[in-house]
């Protein structure tokens, strides 16, 4: 077991940030912590990286206790905080060199591990880190977190504020790192990134809602979901919310995700109801639940 948490709780001035968090991450697993801002993800990361002490519970990383063996943990993990935390006035190469030195290693020694990523930013190695684009910064930060060949990698919202192209590349890199045996704990507020993890924990308001593989999690969704669309989105949502058999109504891009209270739902009944309310171009079709649907159902 690479990361193990048991009943971890943490509060700041009586405001509870984490409550009884328990889960394990296997060696070499890519584990995702999925939840919105303020869910407690960062607090959890800081406890695991020995920066904060939990009020209750125990946790270990790479076999070391987060409280007693904090020094060993600091030697064995790579950490990329949510905020871009490199020296903006140092160049790409200087940043990497600095982090290599303070971990007592050199760029050459572990070049294999970062090679894939570093070649993409190498053309800019004499540029100051502050002048890099968002995607480049993430890549550099990842290189710096990897330079000492950590056993466990903690990435706190690495893709926030990064455009889709860079995000995709970033996840591809994580997959490759995973193959090299590094355990990765990554957090993200984006539900669509959850599918790229081996297992995920859905977290909200300091509590874990569910832990499983992305495929299993959506199977837990208790109802059939329907995509509903019509000519006026605002009226459609309003009407659906007034429908007596409505169980849940959530706008979902160009559609509304609708679930019904009854076991036997006849779409035509709903179409009739919407027509009576002067909606046109009504379409209803069954669809697959997403992780976001599951999240909302659980967080309700």
């Amino acid at each position, binding site marked *: 077991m690479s990361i193990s948490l048991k009943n971890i709780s943490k509060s700041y001035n009586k405001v509870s940030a984490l409550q009884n968090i328990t889960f394990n991450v296997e060696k070499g697993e890519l584990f995702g912590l999925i939840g919105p801002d303020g869910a407690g993800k960062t607090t959890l990361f*800081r406890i695991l*990286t*020995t*920066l*904060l*002490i939990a009020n209750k519970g125990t946790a270990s990383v790479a076999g070391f206790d987060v409280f007693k063996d*904090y*020094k060993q943990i*600091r*030697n064995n*993990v790579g*950490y990329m*905080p949510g*905020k*871009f*935390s*490199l*020296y*903006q*006035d*140092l160049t790409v190469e*200087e940043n990497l*060199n*600095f*982090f290599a*030195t*303070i*971990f*007592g290693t050199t760029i050459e020694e572990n070049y294999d591990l970062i090679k894939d990523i570093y070649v993409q930013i190498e053309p800019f190695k004499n540029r*100051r880190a502050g002048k890099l684009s968002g995607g480049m910064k993430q890549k550099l930060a990842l290189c*710096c977190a990897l330079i000492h060949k950590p056993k466990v990698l903690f990435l706190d919202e690495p893709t926030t504020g990064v455009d889709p192209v860079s995000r995709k590349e970033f996840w591809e890199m994580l997959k490759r790192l995973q193959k090299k045996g590094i355990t990765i704990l990554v957090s993200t507020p984006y539900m669509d990134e959850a599918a790229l993890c081996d297992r995920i924990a859905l977290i909200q308001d300091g509590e874990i809602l569910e832990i499983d593989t992305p495929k299993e999690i959506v199977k837990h969704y208790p109802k059939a979901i329907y995509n509903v669309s019509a000519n006026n989105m605002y009226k459609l949502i309003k009407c659906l919310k007034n429908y007596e058999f409505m169980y849940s109504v959530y706008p979902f891009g160009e559609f509304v995700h609708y679930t019904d209270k009854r076991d036997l739902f006849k779409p035509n009944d709903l179409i009739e109801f919407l027509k009576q309310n002067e909606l046109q171009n009504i379409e209803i079709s069954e669809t697959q639940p997403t992780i976001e649907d599951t999240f909302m159902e659980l967080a309700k």
Partner: protein
Amino acid sequence: MKRFIGFIEKEFYHIFRDKRSLFILFGMPIVQIMLFGFAITNEINNVDIAILNNSKDTKTEEIINKIASSKYFSVEDFIQNENEIEAIFKKGKVKAVLNFETDFSKKLITENNATVQIITDATDPNTANTISNYVSAILQNYSKTNNKNIKLAYQIVPKTRMVYNQELKSVFMFVPGVMTIILMLVSAMMTSISITREKELGTMEILLVSPLKPFQVIIGKVVPYIFLSIINAIVIIVLSMFVFKMPVEGSLFLLGAESILFIITSLSLGILISTVSATQQTAMMISLMALMLPVILLSGFIFPITSMPVPLQILSNIIPAKWFIIIIKGIMLKGIGLTFIWKETLILVAMTLFFIVVSIKKYKIRLE
């Protein structure tokens, strides 16, 4: 060790890439010493005065000539009656009026006693005081040369002699003060800002989650500023020696050693500030408010400690700058050695140790 050197290297990158701070760092001492040396001074030069001469005879003309020919005064105006005195002060240019009584020569010769009234503009009391002293001195001098032949019974002539700063040059007073302020500010403010900057940027988080030990981070932050402050100290001493002809009577080596001690005191104070402040802004405010003002007001740099109310006199003892000013004044002006200032030195050493111990106790190996 390699880690540590890597850390210091990084600190130097930060310092040399931030051109603006670097300019302030090295520009400030030069500007300050020049300001204090040239512009702010207790001496008087070419003060404008006005004369109200009610007798207009040979003696008064002689005296007026003597005063006008001195480098301290220039006669700006002659007024005709006492009503004009207030008007001329209100204009602001004239700082003093000499009022010679009627029949000055006659009285001086027949009665051996004539009066000159010195009226000064005391909106600036220090200057007013100095002016009246200077005028009195000239008058005394005049009467002495005129009365060489007359022997008076029982005359006590007090002769004051100022030692260690015989010309009463105010720059000699200011150099130690300015040097103290600059070393204090540069060392304390810069280190506290550079540590809190890492907290603000979030890089402190990464440094904490690394095998670097707390004391390595702290010492790594301090070493570059020791170098910079030493350079500053040298610049100030050289400037004061060659531009203001300030003597260094005592040992240069001792002066250097004491300066380094004070730099380290200030640096440890800076570290202490950084452990209690979370942002650069707070660090800067604390450095300015808690360091600069007391250093200027309570260290004896501008206002003599002996003329302060007792509570403030006691308070001044906890200001490191006070002790350093005593030390460098002693070395530079009096030329004394360690045997006379070991007590002050010991106080600084004790303060430094105290700051360091508290800082290390307060330095967090975690975020809270």
